[in-house]
């Protein structure tokens, strides 16, 4: 085979590209899962949430979340009037063991003398990593230890993380923490070890009312598409332009 200099120069870039694929090796074992076929997120239906804390306990059990730290947690809002900027928010131990009861009847116990109507509105807001499309937390990492996976999940490479906590500061939603024993950043993985095997997340599995739903935005048959067309849905802090994709149905304006 005779190759003149012109042909050799033309073939060089092609050979370089081919060599890159040789170096990359064979893809890792994930027989029926193609990363680029998915774009994961979550839908939270606030009127369905009863504040039982099942999701918080399930998350802690599934992911060995240390006590006092949360990958997901539940907040209870109490709004009495037009001061939307100052709602009363509680989240005792992240809502892990539920919330203190609010007396229903007029003149009831625990100092609640007003009727429920006068006492204002209560609602529960489950929170977790929003798996932002333009996530501030991945942008600040100095070593490339946190990233958005090809299927839209914000993950932490804990063998590469230095524990500098820039990402903890960068997240506008407070979804990250430094693991007390591993000393690296930890956060919701959207149960990546489950969703890549065709299962739902632990929190969605444990939610008794269906208030949390795992969503695949790239799946045209996912019920999320019909849902988004017919419901008033918001994301948290849209003004931060993070591209958050945990969708909240029927969310009050006081939620921060």
């Amino acid at each position, binding site marked *: 085979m005779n190759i003149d200099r012109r042909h050799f120069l033309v073939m060089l870039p092609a050979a370089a590209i081919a060599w890159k694929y040789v170096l*990359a090796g064979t893809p*890792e*074992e*994930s027989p029926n899962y193609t*990363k680029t076929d998915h774009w994961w997120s979550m839908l939270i239906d606030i*009127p*369905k*949430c*009863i*504040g*039982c*804390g*099942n999701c918080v306990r*399930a998350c802690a*059990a*599934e*992911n060995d979340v240390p006590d006092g730290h949360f990958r997901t947690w539940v907040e*209870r809002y*109490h709004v009495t009037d037009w001061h939307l900027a100052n709602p009363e928010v509680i989240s005792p131990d992240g809502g892990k063991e*539920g*919330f203190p*009861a*609010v*007396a*229903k009847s007029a003149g009831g116990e625990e100092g*609640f003398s007003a009727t*429920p109507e006068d*006492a204002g509105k*209560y*609602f*529960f807001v489950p929170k977790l990593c929003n798996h932002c499309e333009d996530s501030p937390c991945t942008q600040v990492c100095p070593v*490339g*230890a*946190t*990233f*958005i*996976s*090809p299927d839209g999940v914000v*993950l932490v*490479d804990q*063998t*590469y993380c230095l524990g500098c906590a820039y990402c903890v500061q960068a997240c506008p939603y407070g979804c990250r923490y430094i693991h007390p024993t591993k000393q690296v950043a930890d956060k919701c*993985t959207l149960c*990546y*070890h*489950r969703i*890549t*095997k065709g*299962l*739902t997340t*632990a929190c969605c*599995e*444990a*939610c*008794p*009312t*269906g208030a949390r739903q795992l969503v695949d935005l790239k799946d045209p048959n996912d019920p999320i598409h019909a849902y988004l067309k017919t419901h008033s849905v918001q994301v948290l802090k849209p003004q931060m332009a993070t591209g958050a994709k945990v969708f909240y149905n029927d969310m009050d304006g006081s939620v921060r």
Partner: protein
Amino acid sequence: MSLSKDAGHLLRFAYLFVIAFVVFLVIRHFVVPKTFGEYGHYRGSAIAEIASRPMHFAGHEKCETCHTDIAEAKKAGKHEHVSCEACHGPLAQHADDPSIQPAKINTTVLCIRCHAESAAKPGIFPQIDPVQHSGGVPCETCHQPHNGL
């Protein structure tokens, strides 16, 4: 002649730079993980590592492959869409090895986690005052949790 003589000190400096660059490339080759940059500015193999973490919740589909009678009973009641492990807890170990028996559930604690009365809960959700309603008697004395009656 005089040009190369004058350039000598520049060339020696340039060689130094070339050697430093080669040393940098060699160190970089050994220090940077093989899969770094496979998908982006991160270690590509980290994705597979995270995906291979152990599971604790088996998922209700797995429960229903054996417990078909319970799955059938659940369809009749209001707990139809409540997953098994929402109440029974994470049982992947039991699903892998049925000889590992799950702990018995204390319904006086479990049921009221959802059904204790509170004005903060959505009004349409069925709620009771645990003290007035049963006074500590286990819920399954009267109720059938699997079909929610």
